[in-house]
């Protein structure tokens, strides 16, 4: 799958680098000084790079843990996010990453311990907080590249020791062996993102089918893991009511409501400039021909459509879950 691996010279001998390289004996290895030399140059084409993304192994030098954007949360007062990886193996047409980065290559920061030290510092600096949430799947899918990153394998034991820190793994992956083989830890939420099956087939390229994701959630829930549902972004289309109703019913038919930690819904929003980048990359995409407008620097559906969709989904969700488990992610910045 990965044919080219760029490595910062500085971490060529890092144990995690060596471990990854041992699993890609046939890969083309190219050394660089800083990952930005490969990842950041202007003259790159995200769409073309999606044909064959490379892996870039790098060291992160700061800003390990960041404040979550306003409106992003699942009940906790303090919300942070961190990105051990940039970019995703999936190719979802509504994803902001395609407009955020010039390159579709995957950047993996191998210095996990620095992220963990920073989480530890935040927990220690907030002794009065009962719970602090750390979102891991903001700039990547938390689980999809586990066979390469071993992220879950390395971070679960850490969070097991830091019970006040809640880890959200946000994913569409059905590759959950690491979780199924690990003792359940109560301060971890495995959150699955969904759009209705027909929309998923059209917009979520390379993503496991909705049914398989629901079955995977079921296995995790039966093992005792707390699972979350993320209907974010909500995709407007002619039959959205029928399709979202069907999706929600299918999820709750398969998974007991007691296993569900939280459900969040959110509208599709992009900063205007980012939207134009994405629209130029995919001018043939019907999603972007929808009834979108510019409001407060963001490109989104009209307020009326956003509210209608959020209300519709939340009304159905309230039939299955108490209101304190339902969250609206009205992200206004990226």
């Amino acid at each position, binding site marked *: 799958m990965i044919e080219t691996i760029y490595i910062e010279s500085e971490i060529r001998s890092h144990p995690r680098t060596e471990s990854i390289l041992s699993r890609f004996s046939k890969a083309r290895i*190219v050394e*660089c000084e800083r990952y930005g030399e490969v990842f950041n140059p202007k*003259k790159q*084409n995200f769409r073309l790079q999606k*044909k064959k993304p490379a892996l870039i192994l790098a060291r992160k030098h700061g800003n390990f843990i960041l404040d979550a954007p306003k409106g992003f949360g699942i009940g906790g007062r303090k919300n942070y996010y961190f990105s051990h990886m940039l970019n995703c193996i999936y190719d979802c047409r509504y994803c902001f990453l395609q407009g955020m980065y010039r390159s579709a*290559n995957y950047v993996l920061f191998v210095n996990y311990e620095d992220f963990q030290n920073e989480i530890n510092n935040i927990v220690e600096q907030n002794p009065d907080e009962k719970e602090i949430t750390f979102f891991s799947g903001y700039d990547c899918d938390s689980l999809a590249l586990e066979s390469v990153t071993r992220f879950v394998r390395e971070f679960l034991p850490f969070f097991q020791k830091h019970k006040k820190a809640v880890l959200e793994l946000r994913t569409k992956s059905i590759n959950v062996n690491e979780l199924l083989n690990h003792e359940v830890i109560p301060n971890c939420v495995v959150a699955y993102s969904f759009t209705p099956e027909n929309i998923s087939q059209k917009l979520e390229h390379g993503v496991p089918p909705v049914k398989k994701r629901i079955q995977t959630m079921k296995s995790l829930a039966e093992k005792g893991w707390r699972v979350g549902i993320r209907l974010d972004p909500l995709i407007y289309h002619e039959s959205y009511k029928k399709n979202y109703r069907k999706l929600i019913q299918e999820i709750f038919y398969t998974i007991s409501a007691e296993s569900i930690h939280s459900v969040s819904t959110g509208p599709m929003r992009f900063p205007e400039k980012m939207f134009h980048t994405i629209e130029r990359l995919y001018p043939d995409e*019907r999603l972007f021909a929808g009834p979108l407008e510019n409001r407060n620097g963001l490109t989104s559906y009209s307020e009326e459509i956003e509210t209608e969709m959020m209300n519709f989904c939340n009304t159905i969700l309230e039939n299955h879950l108490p209101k304190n488990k339902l969250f609206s992610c009205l992200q206004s910045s990226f």
Partner: protein
Amino acid sequence: MTGKVNFVVALSCEAKPIISHFNLRKRDSTLFKVYSNQDHSIRLIISGIGSSASLKATKHLASVSKDDTSTTAWLNIGIGGHKDLPLATAILAQRIVDSKTKQSWFPQLVFDPPCLTASVKTVEKPDFNYPDDNVVEMEASGFYSAAESYSTREIIHCMKIISDNSQSLSRPPLTETMVDELVNRNLSSIKELVRKLQVLSMEEEERTSDPPFLQECLSLWHFTVTQTHQLKSLLRKWLLLQPGKNVLDVLLPNCKDSRNVIQTLDLHLKNTPVWMDHD
């Protein structure tokens, strides 16, 4: 659409097999020798030796390629040395480093390369010491830095053919005939690479091409630059939401001016239901 490829080659003897295979003809040009095929989808320039010459030639070729060069693929072909790669081996550059400035470029390999890949070092003078694992040559950095002004890294590539190594130094110096033969022996790899680049270039041409009815609208009404951008965007949406329908007949026959065209299109598209596939 065919996809466009621009070759930048230092020497006539390196270019000869390429000119012959792609049936290129010499075109009028004062500064450099420029060749192209009949439909100008493949062009070639002979730059002369050195990074600076290659940079200038690349810029010149872009300036004489009157059409939009942002979707054109660029390919530098030449000879180079390596400490132990066998003679006549073709390599595609995975990294290019300029020995003087230390600047690096990383061509993005979004296709299966038709040959080995290796890192390439551009030097100012011929260097037969081969101090590291790089292929040593004299043009790639100048070529790449210039080509990057026009296209993206996925469609700008350098192929080098090994002409000397640490075992070959005792042999007689290279002649033009020998260089011609080295390139000739790798023509199949060059052809394959060109095919792959043409496909990518064509995809980019399609992605960036004007939507149907744009030229007709521009000839019927006067649009400002900003309005032209708006019109392009709206006509693309029209194509997606009303495929197969002639916007001029269906929606715009009574429009008086450009403002009216944009307002009419915008309002209509906002009220058009969005059906996704399998909806």
